[in-house]
């Protein structure tokens, strides 16, 4: 039984990783699950400098999901390397660094810094965070800016580059293609969807930031569609995410065209989710007599009734 998959030149022992911003820097969950069983650990978004993040309340619970507007709080590159890198470096599984900036140059500079660090698994370029005023989604909803960010990072590093696309576009295909053409080795789809909730008693938005990103099982059907569409548009592998709770969810993404998947919001309520998903994928393959998970990537039977 082969579960391993390839993301650019990076080999994952299995296709199940954890999504940026939902797993801290790995160490927080180290007592609750064996991190070395994961496909990869993706850390919370990092820019060059420390970031304080948005005012609170930063999250709200909604039907079958949640909103967040954390505002990419983080320790910056140096703080991350000092506080968290020794732990992550010692893991047997690769670490993916989720990178963001407010300018093309900052993205590239962060990429250069991690390139120099050595041992990093890959960089995931977050051009799709809906919760910050500068940077984030602005790069992910403009094909030209997206190309510039990816091109600049491509020049800054030989690390595998993963571009994390925004769902908030009319059609994802041109963005997927632009990232591929600019040298991205893979795509992550999807980030949270811009949304909002109101407390009717106080008449205030439930988030201090007013709007936030919607995640969790409620967005899965949107994510599946975006992965399917992007997979038709590009040749590079896709990491699918959005509402994964079970192995069945993950397999849905894989059939739609994802080479790997990431568990996000579900970590918060069930930290074992990623491990359960790995076990369930294995079971599904055994039950269907399939020896290699790569055999089902994109194997949706459509239009051939």
């Amino acid at each position, binding site marked *: 039984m082969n579960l391993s998959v390839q993301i650019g030149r990076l080999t994952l022992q299995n296709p199940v990783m954890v999504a940026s*911003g*939902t*797993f*801290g820097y790995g*160490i*927080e*969950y*180290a*007592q*609750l699950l064996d991190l070395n069983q994961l496909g990869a650990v993706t850390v*919370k978004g990092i820019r060059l400098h420390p970031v*304080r*993040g948005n*005012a*609170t*309340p*930063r*999250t709200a*619970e909604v*039907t*079958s*999901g*949640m909103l*967040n507007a*954390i505002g990419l*709080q983080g320790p910056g590159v140096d703080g991350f390397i000092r*506080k*968290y890198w*020794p*732990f992550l*470096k*010692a*893991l047997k599984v690769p670490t993916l660094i989720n990178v963001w900036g407010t300018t093309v140059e900052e993205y590239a500079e962060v990429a250069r810094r991690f390139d120099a660090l050595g041992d990093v698994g890959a960089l995931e370029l977050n051009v799709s965070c809906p919760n910050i005023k500068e940077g984030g989604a602005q790069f992910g909803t403009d094909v030209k800016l997206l190309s510039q960010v990816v091109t600049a990072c491509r020049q800054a590093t030989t690390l595998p580059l993963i571009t994390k696309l925004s769902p908030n576009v009319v059609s994802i295909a041109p963005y997927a293609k632009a990232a591929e053409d600019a040298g991205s080795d893979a795509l992550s789809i999807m980030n949270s969807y811009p949304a909002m909730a109101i407390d009717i008693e106080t008449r205030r938005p439930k988030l*201090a930031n007013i709007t936030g990103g919607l995640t*969790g*099982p409620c967005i899965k059907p949107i994510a599946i569609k975006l992965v399917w569409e992007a997979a038709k548009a590009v040749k590079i592998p896709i990491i699918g995410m959005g509402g994964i709770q079970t192995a069945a969810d993950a397999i849905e993404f894989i059939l739609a065209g994802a080479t790997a998947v990431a568990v996000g*919001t*579900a*970590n*918060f*309520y*069930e*930290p*074992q989710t990623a491990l359960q998903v790995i076990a369930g994928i294995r079971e599904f393959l055994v039950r269907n007599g399939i020896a290699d998970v790569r055999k089902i990537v994109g194997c949706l039977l459509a239009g051939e009734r």
Partner: protein
Amino acid sequence: MLVGELTASPAPTILLPPMLEETVQILANDRDSDLYFRLVVRAPRVAPLVQPGQFAHVRVLPMKATLLRRPFSIFQVAGDTFSILYKAVGQGTEVLSRMPPGEELSVIGPLGRGFTVPQPGAETPLLVAGGYGMAAMYLLAQRSPQRGIVFVGGRRRVDILCEDEFRALGWQVRVATEDGSHGEMGLVTQPLLAELRRGTDGKKLFACGPTPMLKAVGKIADEFQLPAELSMDEHMCCGVGVCLTCVIPVKAGDGWEYQRTCTEGPVFDSRQVAWEVEK
């Protein structure tokens, strides 16, 4: 426990208190008064680890479209069981209040940094509790070798919980209710102020309750130049430090930074809390 022990890393630098996930069985789940309930669960792995002021992050499995865990202070520990004292305020706690003994919950715990348990010969603890804040205070009182005074407050008589149990531990209890239906009429800070005006020497404050109460206690601690530990109440998603939902402004260097109530807290030294930062 050093997380470094879990890996081959030669450079473990971050200390995390021990925590684990456990499926626990409900042994009892009875109404205490009004909307307050006491839930007792068998949790042989979590229970022995609990320190006063820590919390359990509880997944109420029958909720389906509502996914997140709910945090509750640990109220009592006895053998391989622990209990929580909770108020039914919304979806999660209402569903919880209808779960019969025998059903299961998933618990992650114990979580967070608890209170500094007063050591023999240390300051006299003055505990200030509002509503379900009495839960965290009870475990502190029980574990404290030093006895002191508990100030408990609430809106009405039904909001005053476990008063007798505090007395049974040999603690003095001062009660205040806003409607005067029990104890002094007014806020819990009134009897506290009265006590402090009588003298502050060797006293230390510990508080758990609604945020306005915590803020008031913090201000009183400032005025009387007393040490105070406050258990902060913020909405939480993960409970373990990854999501950065539960932050409060905490003084750092010349300015302030957001720290996590689930990890750096819920208990903070009141001098560290940057109340003045407007949201």
